[in-house]
């Protein structure tokens, strides 16, 4: 069954690991055609929040809604969610094309091999498509990993530190890709420490610290100054 949604609503969500509270009573909404940034220091709860949005973790309390669906419809929701994690989620022994075709197949794409080729062309890696991922540079692997996350044209793209290991040209290409995702009607949520790159890209920003939302901003500008002010103050 193919599902779709126009909005993701996080309602009073908390997540505990034993006695440690990783995310505490977080609430926000994000709609199609928006890029939301999760900003905060290490341990702020950004990755935990992304894991809950990806349906990998259940909230300890609260609710996450994807349009009219809640996260109990996990299997069908996963077909519309793409995740780029801290780790690359790629098999080093397989080639870039094989990795993308494998995951494309698992997402139910009929001609996953040709989709993989197209994705690698878009990532500028066509010449290296039959090289094992282990032989690619960190930046190239990151680009393959991004294409893996987006191979099935997800409605919701969740990206954890997507700029890691990218050179200037690749960073520019990624920024352009994220903007095209937004223009195509995707919901993009990214966690990043790179405030300079996030500047001008984000439509909304959530500043997190110790699992709590310290401040939410629409169309943020001057992120670094705001971050220093908000995070430092708390």
């Amino acid at each position: 069954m193919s599902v779709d949604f126009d909005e993701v609503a996080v309602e009073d969500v908390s997540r505990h690991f034993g006695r440690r509270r990783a995310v505490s009573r977080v609430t926000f909404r994000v709609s199609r055609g928006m890029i939301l940034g999760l900003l905060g220091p290490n341990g702020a709860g950004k990755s935990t929040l992304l894991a809950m949005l990806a349906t990998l973790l259940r909230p300890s309390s609260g609710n996450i809604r994807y349009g009219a669906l809640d996260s109990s419809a996990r299997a069908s929701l996963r077909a519309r969610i793409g995740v780029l994690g801290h780790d690359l989620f790629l098999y080093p022994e397989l080639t870039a094309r094989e990795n993308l075709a494998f995951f494309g197949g698992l997402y139910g794409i009929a001609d996953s091999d040709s989709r993989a080729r197209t994705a690698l062309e878009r990532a500028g890696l066509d010449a290296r498509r039959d090289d094992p991922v282990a032989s690619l540079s960190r930046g190239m692997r990151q680009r393959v990993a991004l294409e893996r996350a987006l191979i099935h044209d997800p409605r919701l793209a969740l990206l954890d530190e997507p700029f890691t290991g990218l050179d200037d040209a690749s960073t520019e290409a990624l920024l352009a890709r994220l903007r095209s995702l937004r223009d195509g009607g995707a919901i993009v949520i990214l966690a990043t420490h790179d405030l300079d790159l996030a500047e001008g890209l984000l439509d909304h920003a959530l500043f997190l610290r110790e699992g709590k939302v310290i401040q939410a901003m629409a169309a943020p500008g001057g992120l670094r100054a705001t971050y220093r002010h908000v995070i430092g103050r708390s």
Partner: protein
Amino acid sequence: MMLRAIWLIVRKDLTVEVRSRELAYTTLFFALSCVLVFAFSLVQEGRAADGVGPGVLWMAIMFAGNLALGRTFERERQAETLRALMLVPAPREAVYLGKLTGIVLLLALTEAVLVPIVAFLFQAEMLAHPFWLISVVATGTIGFAAVGTLFAAMLVRARSRDVLLPVLLYPITVPVIIAGVRGTVAIAQPEFDAEVVRFWLTLLVAFDVVFVTLALWTFEPVMTD
């Protein structure tokens, strides 16, 4: 979707293994070392006591299987690809069955080398009834790997997974190993009794059905959080 996902995962595991050959070599080398050590110890004047060969065979399968299970999931842990498998819309049961099939095929390869060597070194008449032998070894391997795949996946994030896997796996799979050993001993008897072998084989099939069903039932919840 289910069958396609299983096939994709099995094909991926086999492709990775053909390129690295890591699991096949280590599992086979380890199993052969076990068999040789026992052969030097237990074979006197070219003969071993009745039933020793099947016992050594299953012990080697058990140890080698534990090694293969640990390494298969260690591979998935290193680049967090198991997490990626948990993110796809394919049923989680397909992920489990794909991994299980890959491990069973790998162990089958090891057993194909191991069985003739055990039969030769221990002078065990196991190869006289190939249909029954293949049935007993295959069902025993499936039962062992069914539990092992579930536990190895569950423990993939545990710090002491290498210690915990055999601690959990061996006690639970003891009935499978006993039935496997007794079934193989019955096959190796000079006076072959099909009824006895059928009894142990039926027991192994029952274990397989129970273990695979329980694993399919529990895989989704244990892998979600």
